[in-house]
């Protein structure tokens, strides 16, 4: 018998090793394709304790090094095992202000759980499940509290964009005593967490609650405020901000530039997901924003955004929902869990396939999609084998909705209106890696606007690095980890 009760006397290692990795109960696929409720239910208390007891409390925990936001994982797992769930949540929040989000959308299997010592001996500790568990516990039991904040420093930082990078920068800087104002272009804060990631994967109430936590930390959130239009970055500087962080995300959806792409029924994933998530079009006409989903939906791409789109399409009534991906299953960038969920929900996968042309009817609606088959050739710059078109393999599918989920380019709104802000050939803002400072002193950037489309947690990680560097910059502290700051003394930087 393994123990499930909280226990201040830790289990002997041998006993812990006997506990199998716990699974999280989730909605039945047949049911969940009819609703937008969250798929996994979360861990019950006894299961959470049991799972936390599996942690072997390594002397040099690899999981912490595997976490982009440096969560002290063993420390919070021990607290769970002892039944101190609120303490566990606060332990996480010392370094990660958005655990309820990260617990749900981080690719733990690629990070902390990948390097867990138990991963070699079977199955890693379900760190993600447990992070979600304690964050939910704290929120649902009304235990969210303001941590002890240091006295105000009198410094002000503007954060542009309220996605995972911006939220992390804001939380970290607020906890260092700085005044933070977030500027968000949309009417709701959260960035991709509210417009991109579907309700069934990340309930919007949870994002709202994490944003509320930031407000408790003293962060001001200004929505419907487009930097680059209403005010420029330089105007923010003139308004007295000591530093600015740009975390505006990957803004401009890529299309394939093939014939018929502007037919009705062809969406960017950004638009499709924004309609469904931010605007809650799945509740039309109770919500005013409409969305169109036909019987036969093709989603182009193999990433998480493609999975989110195709699973949303199924919930909105698609009879046949296809993933059309130009490489094979092995190269899909989506999380395994997302692919698995999509398969359970009846998504059909067309690998090594790419569309070359769309055919519409007289009213301009897409009706058919001509595709070709691909084969994998030599590895490309990404290290994945490059898909090569097979001549003469053309075929036509009846398709009445297409969702293009092949990535984003950077939005030019801020680079165009900020003189001297260096960008690379793709328009991404260039930063000094150790500090995330841009070519303009005092202006920092991080997340997808720097890297191109990546993950929530890598954006949060960048935010963490930036927050630390911003703190040093505005406090005039000597630089240890970064070089750029030292090169440009603050007085001089201010003149620029």
């Amino acid at each position: 018998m393994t123990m499930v009760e909280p226990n201040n006397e830790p289990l002997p290692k041998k006993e812990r090793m006997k506990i199998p990795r716990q699974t999280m109960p989730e909605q039945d696929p047949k049911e969940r394709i009819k609703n937008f409720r969250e798929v996994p239910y979360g861990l019950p208390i006894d299961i959470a304790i049991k799972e936390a007891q599996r942690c072997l409390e390594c002397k040099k925990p690899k999981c912490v090094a595997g976490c982009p936001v440096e969560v002290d994982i063993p420390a919070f797992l021990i607290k769970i095992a002892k039944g101190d769930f609120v303490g566990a949540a606060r332990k996480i929040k010392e370094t990660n202000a958005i655990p309820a989000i990260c617990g749900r959308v981080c690719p733990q299997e690629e990070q902390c759980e990948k390097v867990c010592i138990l991963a070699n001996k079977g199955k890693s500790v379900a760190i993600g499940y447990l992070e979600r568990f304690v964050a939910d516990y704290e929120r649902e039991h009304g235990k969210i509290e303001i941590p002890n904040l240091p006295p105000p420093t009198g410094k002000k930082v503007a954060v542009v964009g309220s996605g995972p990078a911006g939220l992390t920068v804001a939380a970290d800087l607020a906890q260092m005593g700085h005044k933070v104002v977030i500027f968000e272009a949309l009417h709701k804060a959260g960035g991709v967490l509210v417009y991109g990631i579907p309700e069934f994967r990340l309930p919007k109430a949870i994002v709202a609650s994490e944003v509320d936590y930031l407000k408790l930390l003293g962060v001001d959130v200004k929505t419907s405020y487009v930097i680059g239009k209403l005010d420029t970055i330089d105007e923010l500087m003139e308004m007295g901000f000591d530093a600015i962080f740009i975390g505006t995300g990957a803004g401009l959806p890529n299309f394939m530039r093939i014939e018929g792409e502007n037919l009705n029924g062809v969406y960017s994933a950004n638009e499709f997901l924004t309609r469904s998530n931010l605007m809650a079009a799945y509740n039309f006409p109770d919500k005013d924003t409409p969305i169109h989903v036909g019987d036969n939906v093709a989603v182009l791409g193999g990433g998480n955004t493609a999975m989110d789109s195709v699973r949303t399409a199924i919930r909105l009534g698609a009879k046949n929902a296809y993933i059309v991906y130009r490489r094979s299953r092995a190269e899909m960038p989506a999380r395994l869990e997302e692919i698995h969920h999509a398969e359970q929900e009846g998504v059909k996968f067309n690998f090594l396939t790419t569309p070359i042309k769309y055919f519409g009817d007289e009213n301009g609606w897409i009706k058919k999609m001509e595709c070709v088959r691909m084969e994998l050739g030599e590895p490309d710059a990404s290290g994945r084998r490059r898909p090569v078109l097979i001549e003469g393999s053309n075929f036509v599918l009846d398709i009445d909705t297409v969702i293009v989920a092949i990535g984003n380019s950077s939005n030019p709104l801020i680079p165009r209106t900020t003189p001297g802000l260096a960008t690379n050939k793709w328009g991404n803002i260039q930063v000094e890696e150790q500090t995330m400072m841009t070519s303009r002193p005092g202006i920092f950037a991080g997340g997808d606007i720097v890297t191109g489309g990546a993950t929530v947690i890598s954006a949060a990680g960048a935010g963490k690095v930036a927050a630390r560097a911003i703190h040093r910059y505005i406090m005039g502290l000597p630089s240890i980890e970064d070089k750029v700051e030292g090169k440009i003394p603050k007085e001089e930087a201010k003149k620029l």
Partner: protein
Amino acid sequence: MTKIIDKRELCEKVCQFKIEAPHLVRKARAGQFVILRLDENGERVPMSIGGLDKVNGILTIVIQEVGKTSGAMNRMKIGDCFADVVGPLGVPSHIEKFGNCVCIGGGVGIPPIYPIAQALKEAGNNVTTIIGARSKSLLIFEKELTEASHRLLISTDDGSYGTHGFVTTVLQKLLNDGEKIDMVICVGPVPMMKAVVETTRKPAIKTYVSLNPIMVDGTGMCGACRVTVGGKTKFACVDGPDFDGHEVDFEEMTKRMKMYIRQEKIAYEKFLHDGCHLKKQMDTISN
């Protein structure tokens, strides 16, 4: 929350709102647009700027009831608030000293012509404005445009006021009379903009049109507002809304604007039905 400080019905189903948005108004320029939301359930609706009172920070917008959202907006009263307004969005109209400019507005495309005409006049141009409506009773902004232009010309489809015909009838007459026109800018329904660019194509007069496709975010993130201009896909929200009219694929745009026609009908009928139902209930209560 964005407060309505003045509201006036300009003609049937068309209302003018003056709303408080000091920061936005201070930054906005002619030809830009805003996105407005009715309430917490509201869609994001792009709206042309129909006037900028820079002194008092007041934004003018004109809304024509064509569906649920516009219908509900036009039933709002002075003192009510929109959920939010965001802007200024889009690239301002290209303003320079062209010489002789013709500003053309039709329907609810007339108000956005007003700040554009003002800006062109201020830039030292000789501004002729042509506005058109189906009938005299539907003609709006005559007073404003008289003041903003050197010359105001009017057309009505039924001949009840001004020239009998369309704005293009008036424009063609100017061309026939041998007037030198250096630039035309046009805001209005798609068929009207299409007719205007066809009129100016042969004499090769630079013609800008201000497009109003379906949008969601209005900052380049969603791509709903794709338009084909010169064979290339552009986003009206960040590349426009003004484009070289001779390069615009109006046929595609017309079709794209009908994308949600079915849903719009459902929402509008529900809105009108719920409105009637509510009114009946109120009547019952007051009786």
